[in-house]
């Protein structure tokens, strides 16, 4: 086996193998389990780094296994794959650290971390899938591996959330499968290609391809929480905080948004999709989702539920960017895939910290939280400001590119959608910040579990991850022009998807 094949399989194995070992570990083997988890996360990060260096130097990494005559399982690393893979690998390390601290002392940790590792394996597979068939294999694996995490607590609420999650995602998977097999029947097994591969079919298939597009987007739209397929996301927030982080930032909704990008850019090809009049309806759905998600978030008193609706809205920025025809909008969508991830994971880490440390679950209970937990609240504030698109945050970079993209594509209404969403974002985030920083703290917190020790407001393992991702939120904006920023990478991808020149 060539080194390049081994390298790409090693990326999958670096979470799969530790996960499988963890499944059979006794509950009491805490140190070994932690070692395995961290070893896997760090090894994956290093491997992704090697691939990044290789791909930017023009190296090709791929692995192919034929499962049926004319049906291949293809894993390959291209620029778009690595955008998502890097995001997941980085955030997985932080989520693992956080989860170790968060679950300390709770039951069934071997099961939890086993499925946790499977989830990340599936996400890596989705990122590096080389054709639709492979994408589907890992996409469904992600659904299955996430279910035990959503129902981890075993409470009736968790069960209900899990059932709703399954009903939506398996239903979406069925639509996706139909669309994929249909395309397979038309073209045979074809790998993802820059600029898409369907335009070769010719205009006779236009009607069919429009219908298949609907099936495919509905399929991935469930995970991307496009309205009206978003109902599972607010329900699934009953899961433990690290799982929410995984759902909202690292894996699940990202897999959906990433699927939209793969389908538009590398199956249909953005220019062909535009010629079939597919992009404008997609932009309209994304716009409705953006406004509706933000609007619903206004009325949620449960902090995690408010964040969940915020995700519904923010993930559709990515879809909107994809649907804005033109390289600038593309860059905006791609870069927001990364930026939304680091900002949203910060918010969920912080929400978890409030719940675990003080027993605070509701927005109305957050009064004075900034005095009791200043570092957590600082991280929360940075991420929340980022979501609104405040200057010097990652959110500002995404929003600037998206707004320019809307102007470039001549879709000025999309710009108004983004501005409306920013106002709504401010309307549901600023009250939280005001409560946390400006209101006096209550005499007793609802359920204080971790006492304050001097300046340390909670466990180190709970505090470090959100601080790190909050710093990344700022760094992504301050160093946006450096060669290794998410923005630079997104521009590299966009340059490859359009036949024309880049801005």
């Amino acid at each position, binding site marked *: 086996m060539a080194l390049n094949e081994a390298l790409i399989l090693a990326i999958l194995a670096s979470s799969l193998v530790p996960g499988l070992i963890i499944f059979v570990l006794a509950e009491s083997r805490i140190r070994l389990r932690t070692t395995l988890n961290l070893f896997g996360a760090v090894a994956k990060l290093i491997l992704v780094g090697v691939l990044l260096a290789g791909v930017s130097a023009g190296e090709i990494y791929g692995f192919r296994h034929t*499962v049926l*005559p004319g049906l291949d399982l293809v894993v390959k690393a291209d620029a778009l794959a690595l955008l998502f893979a890097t995001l997941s690998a980085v955030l997985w390390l932080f989520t693992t650290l956080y989860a170790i601290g968060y679950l300390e002392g709770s039951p069934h940790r071997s*099961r939890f971390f086993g499925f946790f590792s499977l989830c990340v394996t599936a996400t890596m597979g989705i990122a590096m899938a080389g054709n639709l068939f492979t994408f589907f*294999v890992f996409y*469904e694996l992600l659904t*299955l591996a996430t*279910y035990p995490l959503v129902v981890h607590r*075993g409470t009736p609420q968790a069960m209900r959330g899990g*059932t709703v999650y399954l009903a939506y995602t398996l239903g979406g998977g069925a639509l996706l499968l139909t669309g994929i097999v249909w395309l397979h*029947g038309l073209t045979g097994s074809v790998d993802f290609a820059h600029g898409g591969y369907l335009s070769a079919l010719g205009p006779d298939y236009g009607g069919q391809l429009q219908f298949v597009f609907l099936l495919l987007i509905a399929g991935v739209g469930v995970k991307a929480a496009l309205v009206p397929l978003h109902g599972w996301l607010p329900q699934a927030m009953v899961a433990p905080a690290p799982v929410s982080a995984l759902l909202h930032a690292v894996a699940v909704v990202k897999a959906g948004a990433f699927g939209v990008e793969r389908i538009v850019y590398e199956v249909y090809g953005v220019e062909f999709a535009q010629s079939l009049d597919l992009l404008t309806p997609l932009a309209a759905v994304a716009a409705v989702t953006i406004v509706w998600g933000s609007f619903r978030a206004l009325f949620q008193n449960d902090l995690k539920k408010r964040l969940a609706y915020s995700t519904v809205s923010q993930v559709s920025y990515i879809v909107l960017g994809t649907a804005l025809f033109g390289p600038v909008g593309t860059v905006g969508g791609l870069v927001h895939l990364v930026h939304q991830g680091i900002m949203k994971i910060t918010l969920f880490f912080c929400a978890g910290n409030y719940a675990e440390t003080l027993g605070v679950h509701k927005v109305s209970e957050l009064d004075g939280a900034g005095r009791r937990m200043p570092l957590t609240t600082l991280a929360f504030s940075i991420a929340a400001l980022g979501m609104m698109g405040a200057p010097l945050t990652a959110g500002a970079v995404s929003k600037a590119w998206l707004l320019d993209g809307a102007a470039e594509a001549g879709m000025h209404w999309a710009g108004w959608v983004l501005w409306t969403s920013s106002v709504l974002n401010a309307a549901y985030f600023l009250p939280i910040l005001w409560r946390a920083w400006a209101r006096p703290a209550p005499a007793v917190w609802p359920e204080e579990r971790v006492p304050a020790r001097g300046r340390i407001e909670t466990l180190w393992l709970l505090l470090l991850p959100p601080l790190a991702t909050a710093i990344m939120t700022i760094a992504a904006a301050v160093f946006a022009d450096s060669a290794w920023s998410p923005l630079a990478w997104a521009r590299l991808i966009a340059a490859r998807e359009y036949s024309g020149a880049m801005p």
Partner: protein
Amino acid sequence: MTDPIAWLILLPLFWATAAFLLGPGRGARLAIAALLAQCGLALQLAADVIDGGARTHAVGGWGAPLGIDLAVGGLSALMLVLTQAIALPLAVYARAYFADGAPAVRYFWTLTGFLLAGLNALFLAADLFNLYVTLELVGLAAVGLVAAGGSARQVAAALRYLFAALVGSVMYLLGVALIYGAHGTVSLQTLAPLVDARAPAAVWIACGLMLAGLMLKTAIFPFHYWLPPAHGGAPAPVSALLSALVVKASFYLILRLSLEVFAPLAATAATALGLLGAAAIAWGSWQALRTVHIKMLVAWSTVAQLGYLFLVFPLLAPDGLALQAGVMQAIAHGLAKAAMFAAVGVLMLATGRDTLEGLAGVAGRMPLTLFAFGLAGVTLMGLPPSGGFLAKWLLIEAALTHGQWGWVAVVIAGGLLAAAYVFRVLRQAFLLAPADSPFHPVPRSMEWTAFVLATASMLLGLQGVELMSLLAAGS
């Protein structure tokens, strides 16, 4: 006499007889050793077929028409490998399951030996009459296995099963007699060129009788009435053997006869068979969603999954997609259902309950078994990368290629229904257990055999090329 063809029939006959002579409940180790050898033989035979194509074997050197011919092709070699590969882990499982000397074990090894001899012979038989004999042997051994538990419920289920099996056999035999009257031969090879669409009425009637008899034995809707009590009431290893292998044997016959001999006539019934398959999927899944007994849930799931096998008939075409789908489904379902019954057996022993309700908390206590159940469930739902997924993929592709949209909807809906009943079990298992619920330890070997079977059904999806090349060899 070193031909694996003969030994695959003789060896199980030998250990069945030996088990009978050793006395009630004895012979487990002998059976396991012999099954290991049978696995080797089946694999060797499969390798032979890949290299040399289909071939026949004249028993004792006396070929047809005086003696008996046995024949092996790609399809039969695949079924033989599947049979031995499922029987071996189940034998290991059964040895632990019956360790306490339950009444059902008295004739278990003897009957299982005869059952396997009958199955192997059925896959190898080359004429209609020998097929009848093997069918009868399989049916009687299976009925015996169901009845062996001895409880009133099991005997009642066995009697129902016996009735269905006998009526099915008689209809089949009647058909064979009519064919013999019309064409003067029962050899499949000789018959094939004689049958065409202008066949006399007697042949049409014969064909219909044989088909009806075999459908009764396959328990396709609406002939499924005997299956849930028989498969749901028998001891776990028996249920596993019956659901995984026995119903597949009569399906194999329908498939083989309609492909090789009665192809000109079979096309007329194809759509009807497909519709029955769709009805089976709907009805079986619906019942699986309603039942409160965990084992009945698995048995009803067999009714539903058999439906997929019949969706193949309206889609059979020279491109071979549907045939591949059917065979893949038979294999994947065989492994998965064996795993599922094995896992359910473990769970029932451990909790001492037979209802879904009693499963609360097993996710924490028996993760390995629940994992096995889940993996098997993934195959039944047809999610990747399982063998069931490839079967479903091929079915959808075949349906889309022929523009037959309805079947696509059936396959997709069937998968979602399967997910609904499989997750009924998993969901219950994740609930918190009541503090006082009793819990009995179960031998690890049983947990692991269920897991191995489930993993096999899962990884099958990555080995489709090898399976399909074997299927294509010698056909």
